[in-house]
């Protein structure tokens, strides 16, 4: 079937098998490999992207379901490695990543959280990230990064 998705502002159209998952569409068709696959039970959140501005696990969405809609991946957050989005910047400043495998999903989940709740408490950050697993950081610096990004955005 033919699927057309606006990915990071640009249109990507392709003929794909019906069962193609959005995450595979992004990686194999759109060529955007930052979004990772960490499990096969929709447990890890490594594949988190924004679909029409809301975070989804892209391994649980068919490419067909994204037809005609907008997807943002971590590649679409900033214009390059020099100019980081505030959340990316905070992850860097607070050492919120180690191996980096969970990071694109973790950043997108955090962006989505802050869009809904611009000044979360530590507990709220932890709850919001419950569906995103990280095996390296113990979450300590991830939580600090999200809190730092939130206070950065708050006019003081």
């Amino acid at each position, binding site marked *: 079937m033919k699927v057309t998705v606006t990915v990071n502002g640009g249109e990507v159209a392709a003929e794909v098998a019906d069962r193609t998952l959005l995450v595979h569409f992004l990686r194999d068709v759109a060529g955007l490999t930052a979004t990772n696959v960490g499990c096969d039970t929709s447990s890890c959140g490594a594949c988190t992207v924004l679909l029409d501005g809301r975070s989804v696990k892209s391994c649980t969405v068919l490419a067909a379901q994204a037809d005609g809609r907008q997807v943002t991946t971590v590649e679409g957050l900033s214009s390059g490695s020099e100019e980081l989005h505030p959340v990316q910047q905070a992850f860097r400043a607070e*050492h919120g990543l180690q191996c980096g495998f969970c990071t694109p999903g973790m950043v997108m989940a955090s962006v989505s959280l802050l869009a809904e709740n611009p000044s979360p408490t530590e507990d709220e950050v932890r709850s919001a990230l419950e569906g995103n697993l990280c095996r390296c950081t113990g979450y300590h610096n991830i939580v600090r990064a999200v809190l730092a990004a939130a206070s950065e955005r708050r006019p003081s």
Partner: protein
Amino acid sequence: MVRTEDPRLLTVGGTYVDDLREPELAQAARVTFVRSPIAHALITGIDVSAAREAPGVVAVLTAADLDDLPPPPPDSGLTGTEGLPFPLGGHWSEPLFAVDRVRFVGEPVAMVITDDRYQGEDAAELVSVDYEQLPAVVGVAGALAGESLLFPPAGSNVAVSTGTPADSAAFDGCDAVVEQVIVNQRLAPVPLEGRAAAARWADGKLTLWVSTQNAQIARFILAGALGLDPANIRVVAPDVGGGFGAKIGVDRDGLLVAWAAKHIGRALRWAETRSENMLAMTHGRAQRQVVKIGGTRDGRILAYRLEIVQDTGAYSRMGGFLPFLTSLMAAGPYDIAHVETAYQVVMTNATPISAYRGAGRPEATAAIERAVDLFAAEIGMDATEVRRINLVPADKFPYTSGSGATYDTGEYVAGLDKVLTGAGYAELRAEQARRRETGDVLQLGIGVASYVEITAADADGGETARLVVHDDGTATVYTGSSAHGQGHHTAWAMLVQAELGIDMSKVTVIHGDTDLIPMGVGTYASRSLQLGGVALQKAAIEVKELGRKVAAEMLEASEADLELDVDRGVWQVRGDPATSTTWAQVAAHVGEAGLAADVNYTDGKPTFPFGTHLAVTEVDTETGKARLIRHVTVDDAGTVLSPVLAEGQRHGGIAQGVAQALLEEMVYDAEGNPVTGTLVDYAIITATELPSFELLASETPATVNPLGAKGIGEAGTIGATPATQNSVIDAVSHLGIRHIDMPLTPARVWAAISEARESR
């Protein structure tokens, strides 16, 4: 400090194996493994005809196709008692594809190669394997019962048996003796990136891209398994999404991908699913221990015995190495006059056991730290007081422990006291007393674990570094060490900047490519900084001395009069900043010959990091649910190069350690079927189950290497697990509970509470 790795990882993501878009892999086909669904069975037939006809199928391969491999190496004669981390050979050998018999659920039986990934899933289902089921050997008890054998020619499920016989007189002078059976449960390592490989055979040369901690070791293993000259193999480790010991070298699945690419002459890719990863990579821990501890009523421990049965799973990938390390570190940080250890390694129909963050040392610490708490309870003394009395005092170093390890440097008591003060131990005990008094549903537990561990145990294996300074003033580091999240690129750039004054931003670090770095060991055993870092520091010093000669010539001054201004990164005549020359100019002056140094550092020695963890938990006495609310630690790993990176290692280790204590366990049913084989059933710890951690600083330099560094990668898992376990048990100790095995799930804690209440 911010990491040089991060802008890329944060914006376009890392390049993990499955992200590779190299032109050589453009036509790569996909590998899907067919794995055994049965724990123990004879294979009576494999029919691949239907799968071969399925859409997109390029090939279907089984053990019958492995006709172009060298004969397996002769039996090494190793019995596994030598304490070396090698697989047992002979009867116990692990094949590539299962031959005639499967021994664990997840064992590779066949491989389907297809044009795309979805076709592979379909075709794999069409491979029909006939099994004749055999009784499964489940757990240590099943192995020792010996009613069913994994390797009948061996005549036993016990592969290794060694140690000192129990000396009953050893406990004679003790006022109190306690014995306890402790299960250190089987865990899945779960790096967030599973195993993955891509392979290409062209012009007589094999290239394998593989998610590994050790490209050079992977090359060595490949050469042996495929009968190739190492010169005709290139192994590349691109970004690696976590390893935790489970990605050392390359295992049978990766070897099969490499072999198949050569066998069918087509580039191949493989990235396992998480469910495959949970069953077919490796597992860790899996020891049943019996501890016996005795001492005087005033708190002095006189004797300790640790007996281990290591469940090694279906194949012995590390011989007797893991329980050997556990035995070596059995005495922990305590000065105990008499220590005995003994261990067995037994085969079971479960995923093979290998290194997992800590690899043998967390098991040692868990045993002695439980034992100390049991002994303290027996004599009615505060467990931290018992620790203080028995910790090796600072003036006794170097100190050889009762279990035979020689600890280099340490301030064990100071570390304990720092944690107790930092946590507010007295106030915590007061709060605990208050809650006990009022019968609060949420009881407070305070658990402490002091540890010493061994890092870079194989220091004499060495590590390599090559440093080149270029005529544009930049530098390139080629390191034998290997990164999978630790931050090597940043740390190595820091070392170059510190020695040469070349700004970190101008230092490129290259690792994990055997064409560029043929010699190296890679990363495990917390060895990177103390071996690979020292190698690089030595290379930098050599480059500096070369630079001095050249700069002296250029500035027409004597070498003795020259100094390197490390802030500006320029050479100058002492006291005369006006006459100076930059690294770029020096390198340009040398020209082709290059400004470079190669070091293979083999003079390192193992180091012994130590510390204390204190965990505060709240246990709901109505549901049994335990929740970690504070975690305070000292983890002394000698001189710290980068506090940020070192803390990151501690954070991650603590989380994994807490997860073992509270949540994680690979469970098998009576038929050897995994019950917790997906991330739905296997409880990886999440952000909601952890507090922020309270890390205290302590630096007691190592004396055996010039950086003063010890390893920090595994400390977290070593200290956090017993501190958390002790904490939960402490929360319910007033009910008469002395021990609960891990993981301390609500069901287990609740069962212990009800049993204790009934027996009152």
